[in-house]
């Protein structure tokens, strides 16, 4: 097993004494696709910026490829790619010119890949950036981060302005990137469906803490919807343990619980005396349930 690409321990970041992230610890392994979810303001962008070394941590430590992120050496920077939420393209340049400019900073650049993606993603290299639509600009931004074939790719809301076709093309490219198992992708997005497709690990940020961090499959098995069917009316006085949301209707109840296990099942059966059906939830439902 390779060394993890990113290791963070007890990361804390505060601005003006206001904590944005507290005690966050995580790892990124080779081949991971990590989806970062969180409400606006939960700290997603700050987390990514800390990993990239844009800003130093107030406490704790984060290392990328074994180096402290705030002082990344040039050789390590060449292994990292980043797509910011707000693009940083130079308005006066054409798309082609912008590509050449960024290309000049890297020793290795996959011209064939870029050429193929420019064709498939329908980008006009001769168009001036300031005349491009927001979606085109976002596509170009993504492209700029792919050319040097980074081992670690971090994306902050990369597809917010893309139409469904463009989004699907982008996701396909992510699949290509991680297919060989040596490259990792961390991306934050509000489009939960995209994360649901691709992520194998999920980070959920809530109030500056990693509320959940682990395999997507484990998350799915932990947070489930239960359909309870009792022989007599179940009333709302009954306290269902580990419940995030409960809804009673006469003999039935629906409850979303976290930490589902055989023990919990036994507990609930004991308390309610009802039959239990388990239903899996979509990632969006899971996210909403966590924030009610």
């Amino acid at each position: 097993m390779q060394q993890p690409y990113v290791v963070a321990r007890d990361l804390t970041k505060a601005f003006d004494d206001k904590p944005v992230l507290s005690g966050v610890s995580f790892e990124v392994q080779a081949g991971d696709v990590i989806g970062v979810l969180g409400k606006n303001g939960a700290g997603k962008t700050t987390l990514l910026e800390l990993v990239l070394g844009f800003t130093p941590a107030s406490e704790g430590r984060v290392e990328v490829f074994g180096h402290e992120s705030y002082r990344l050496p040039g050789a390590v920077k060449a292994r990292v790619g980043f797509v910011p939420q707000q693009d940083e393209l130079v308005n006066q340049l054409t798309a082609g010119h912008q590509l050449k400019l960024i290309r000049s900073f890297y020793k290795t650049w996959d011209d064939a890949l870029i050429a193929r993606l420019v064709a498939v993603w329908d980008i006009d290299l001769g168009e001036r950036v300031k005349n491009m639509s927001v979606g085109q600009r976002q596509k170009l931004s993504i492209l700029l981060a792919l050319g040097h074939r980074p081992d670690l790719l971090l994306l902050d809301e990369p597809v917010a302005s893309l139409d469904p076709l463009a989004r699907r093309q982008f996701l396909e490219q992510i699949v290509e990137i991680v297919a060989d198992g040596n490259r990792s992708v961390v991306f934050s997005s509000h489009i939960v469906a995209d994360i649901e497709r691709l992520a194998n690990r999920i980070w959920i940020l809530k109030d500056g803490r990693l509320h959940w961090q682990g395999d997507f499959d484990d998350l799915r098995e932990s947070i489930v919807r239960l359909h309870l069917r009792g022989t007599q009316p179940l009333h709302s006085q009954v306290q269902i343990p580990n419940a995030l949301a409960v809804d009673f209707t006469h003999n039935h109840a629906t409850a979303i619980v976290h930490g589902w296990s055989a023990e919990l099942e036994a507990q609930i059966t004991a308390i309610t005396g009802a039959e239990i059906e388990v239903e899996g939830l979509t990632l969006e439902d899971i996210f909403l349930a966590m924030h009610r």
Partner: protein
Amino acid sequence: MFVLKPHSGVPLHRQLDEQIRRLVASGQLAPGTALPSIRELALAHTINPMTVSKVYTRLEAEGVLERNRGKPMTVAAQRRAQAPHSARLAALDAPLEHLVLAARQLELDADAVIEALRKKWETSDAATVRGRARPHKGV
């Protein structure tokens, strides 16, 4: 070949796993048939290659698929004879769950459901089953 629904609440690896098992058990995927590579399948459905890899590895461990050096995964030979009854029954788990859930919501009792199931069984035959499960073009 496969119909994968990432947003159904059912994990993708389970969907893929069940579908492969079912197709193998029913003979749709004959022994020796090559399956798409991990990369191809992942790209076609835009899912994480690790998911496909997990399923392939598990099925290989259970003898449903076999790996050939340098060549794509193929369906293992004599699968039908060797598939344990319990494993094949396990492949029915998901549709059974749905059936039971729907029946409960409609407040039907077990006997009525079993009777309907028996009727359905008798009116269908192997050919119809094969016809229905004809694989789609592509993966």
